[in-house]
């Protein structure tokens, strides 16, 4: 592996007293070597190689032979010692120079134990076929889309996957875009005959003409025949009640699908019995663009991941690179980052609840929810000059000094926001029209949600109190008092309500931080290798001028290493998995978008409901296409 960091500036090892690394440290001071011995002993020697703890990795890492991967995954999930029940992410990495060219990287998380584990599976490329791996869909449902994405981007095949087809790129695409030998500007034209053929998970027995038993059979997964959106969706012998059954297509340019998703559903009367989702209509190659730009230039791209709360993306990315560099932002920057992150979270929740209620016909709430949003825009604009795509963070701090009226503006916002939230609550919380539409719709239990890889407010609405800000506190979240709201309905209504509750918690965090006062000091680190020197110096001093030129022409030199750092985005865990080969450009950046696993559950959520339920549940999931498809 190229990222074998040996420089002293590499991130903290798992065994240090670093608070964020505490979960790993708790697993034993001996580091990853002695970790989970009970699990490892069940597998043949040599099939699992733990990376030594002194290699400077951020979390325990095992290099796993692909032959044992499926069994190991099941064991890691079920063993009481490990209980890694949440598959965070599957990332592919391409090392053209190695004999085993590809690497599939699995990030696991254990909710009850608050521990993380990384599995790396090297795969060789053979001349006759694509590299092959076992699919982990039987163990974690979250692997479904994640593996499709890896297949799409790297061409790794997952045997046993129910529907291994392209996810983000279109069907006419040739080659695999994130391989290092793929030209980043090579495009392919999509023609009508190449469009995606949906794959329906029709219930067992349905094909035998037993359409009436849909509800009974809904739990058993069966592999239906691939079908086209037309009436040929069902085989010929299933036409006994064809009048009642039809396949409809919604989107991508449909307001209910938020403009970028395509839903194909098989209806029995009004009930959705199977559906398939096509995404990728906003795939804009974020990860490839990262590899062609310098570390600093990636920041504007991160803005456009979750564009409803772009500042949180900035923070998540900059924190990751800062950790890799071994620096930390000055207190004032951290303070401002925490406050503005919380404001961004409020904005995101406002958009989500507003648009959900619009989907349900409550347009008034949309106006009310957009008022606080406009006011927060004003604050962000006064800080950095842009309303939506802020690019306010820089590696090592902030791009500019806070505006002089920052405190006053924040305090004013604390006054403005609650009345509008209260108004919406008064309109909707106990409104039977909304209750009838939302309660019990698209419900999912906590255990299932974890298996599907959910995080964030949607998971907390299903009764699992997992919040990265609490589990692995960063910035200033461990110094303020706040609660993690939890609801147990797991349905659209509770997902709506929990966002209102979180808005109030965010306001509470902000109020405490404002009461504490603005820390003194600079807004960016005073390190000419990372941050541009102050302009006064750059104009007048030769040394500062040289640093200025060097930093812009060469970029920040990030030491070799790899790091996965989670941040609580507005939708859940926003993780950046970053690999550096020591040059000015990232070797690989993989984003773990919070809404990606949530969206992959959508077809399961809407099964058995009506089309109107599907529309309303999509809004409640708060899927933002920019980060879903990147």
């Amino acid at each position, binding site marked *: 592996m190229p990222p074998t960091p040996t420089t002293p500036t590499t991130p903290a090892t798992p065994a240090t007293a670093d608070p964020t690394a505490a979960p790993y440290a708790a697993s034993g001071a001996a580091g990853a070597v002695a970790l989970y011995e009970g699990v490892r002993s069940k597998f043949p020697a040599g099939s699992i190689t733990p990376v030594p703890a002194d290699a400077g990795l951020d979390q325990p890492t095992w290099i796993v032979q692909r032959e044992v991967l499926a069994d190991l995954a*099941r064991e890691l999930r079920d063993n009481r010692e490990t209980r890694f029940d949440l598959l965070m992410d599957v990332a592919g990495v391409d090392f053209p120079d190695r004999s085993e060219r590809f690497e599939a990287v699995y990030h696991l998380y254990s909710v009850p134990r608050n521990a993380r584990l990384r599995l790396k599976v090297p795969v060789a490329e053979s001349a006759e076929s694509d590299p092959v791996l076992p699919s982990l869909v039987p163990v974690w449902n979250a692997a479904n889309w994640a593996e499709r994405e890896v297949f799409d981007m790297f061409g790794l095949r997952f045997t046993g996957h129910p529907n291994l087809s392209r996810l983000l790129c279109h069907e006419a695409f040739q080659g695999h875009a994130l391989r290092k030998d793929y030209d980043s500007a090579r495009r392919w034209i999509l023609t009508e005959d190449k469009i995606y053929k949906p794959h329906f998970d029709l219930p067992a027995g349905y094909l035998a003409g037993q359409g009436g038993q849909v509800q009974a059979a809904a739990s058993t997964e069966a592999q239906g025949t691939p079908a086209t959106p037309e009436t040929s969706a069902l085989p010929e012998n299933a036409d006994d009640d064809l009048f009642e059954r039809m396949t409809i297509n919604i989107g991508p340019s449909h307001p209910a699908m938020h403009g970028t998703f395509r839903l194909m559903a098989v209806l029995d009367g009004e009930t959705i019995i199977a559906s398939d989702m096509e995404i990728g209509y906003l795939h804009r190659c974020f990860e490839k663009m990262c590899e062609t730009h310098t570390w600093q230039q990636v920041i504007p791209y991160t803005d456009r991941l979750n564009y409803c709360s772009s500042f949180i993306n900035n923070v998540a990315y900059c924190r990751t690179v800062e950790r890799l560099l071994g620096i930390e932002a000055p207190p004032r920057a951290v303070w401002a980052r925490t406050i503005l992150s919380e404001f961004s979270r409020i904005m995101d929740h406002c958009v989500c609840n507003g648009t959900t209620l619009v989907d349900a016909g409550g347009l008034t709430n949309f106006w009310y929810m957009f008022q606080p949003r406009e006011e927060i825009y004003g604050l962000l*604009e006064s800080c950095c000059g842009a309303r939506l795509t802020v690019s306010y963070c820089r590696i090592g701090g902030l791009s500019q000094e806070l505006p002089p009226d920052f*405190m006053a503006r924040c305090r004013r916002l604390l006054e403005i926001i609650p009345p509008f939230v209260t108004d919406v609550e008064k309109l909707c919380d106990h409104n039977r029209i909304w209750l009838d539409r939302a309660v019990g719709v698209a419900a999912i239990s906590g255990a299932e949600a974890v298996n599907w890889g959910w995080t964030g407010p949607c998971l907390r609405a*299903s009764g699992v109190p997992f919040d990265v800000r609490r589990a692995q506190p960063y910035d200033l979240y461990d110094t303020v008092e706040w609660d993690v709201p939890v609801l147990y309905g797991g349905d659209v209504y509770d997902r709506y309500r929990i966002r209102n509750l979180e808005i109030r918690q965010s306001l509470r965090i902000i109020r405490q931080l404002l009461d504490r006062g603005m820390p003194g000091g600079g807004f960016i680190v005073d390190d000419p290798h990372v941050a541009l020197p102050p*302009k006064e110096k750059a104009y007048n001093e030769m040394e500062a001028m040289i640093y200025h030129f060097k930093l812009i022409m060469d970029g920040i030199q990030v030491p070799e290493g790899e790091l996965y750092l989670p941040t609580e985005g507005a939708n859940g865990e926003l993780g950046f998995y970053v690999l550096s080969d020591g040059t000015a450009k990232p070797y690989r950046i993989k984003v773990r978008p919070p809404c990606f696993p949530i969206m992959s559950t959508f077809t399961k959520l809407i099964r058995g409901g009506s089309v109107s339920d599907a529309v309303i549940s999509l809004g409640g999931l708060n899927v933002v296409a920019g980060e879903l498809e990147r």
Partner: protein
Amino acid sequence: MNTAPMPQAPQALPAIPAAEPPPAPYPTTTRPYRQSMAERLYLPLVGGLMVTLRHFLLNLFHPGRMLTIEYPEERRSYSHRFRGHHILTTRPDGSVRCVACYLCAQACPAECIHIEAAEHPDVNIEKYPVVYEIDMLRCVFCGYCVDACPEEAIIMSNNYDMAYFNRDQTIVGKADLMKPYTFDDGQLGYRPRYPEEEAERAKMRREAFSLVEAARRARQEPGVPAVPAAASAPPAAGSPAPPAPPP
């Protein structure tokens, strides 16, 4: 065990008994919200109607309270950090200040700046741009060019009124970029330095320190909890800052 057949499996796998997953520490069922009797009778709707009625009446009798900005006549007051149309600043003699060092073009993530340099007749200046073009359609207004400029030659205005009818208009050259600078200072946007902020910013710095000082003083006096109780990790002595983030 749902293991897919693997090519070139080196050894047989030991059979692992499929263990039952341990009971999850989180719910396996959902408990949906239950409607109360009042909600079944649609009673809370009255409260909702009062909300909309209140907004309606307030807007009706206090038109000044309405939030709508009558845009072409009335403009929202954006801050002087707004990232709008670019400006090439000039020297006192009216010539362009840019020295064609290509830093902005290098820093631009969209690669939308095109510069062609030439020798300047003045030896002290060395170079100047013969051509300086920005493709406004490519530009993402991130402000990186302003950050990169070592001469304060490119800054941004707060002008957002931009629309073009064809692509030829969208590549703006030196003439267009220098023209906005003849406008007043109120039109300046994102810049490296904000002279108008200096006084207020100095005040902010003083207040920042004084607030923390006050907190520390209050902490030393027993019985006066001025810091929030949660901030149990107080500012380290000697450092006026709240606790640093975890490294």
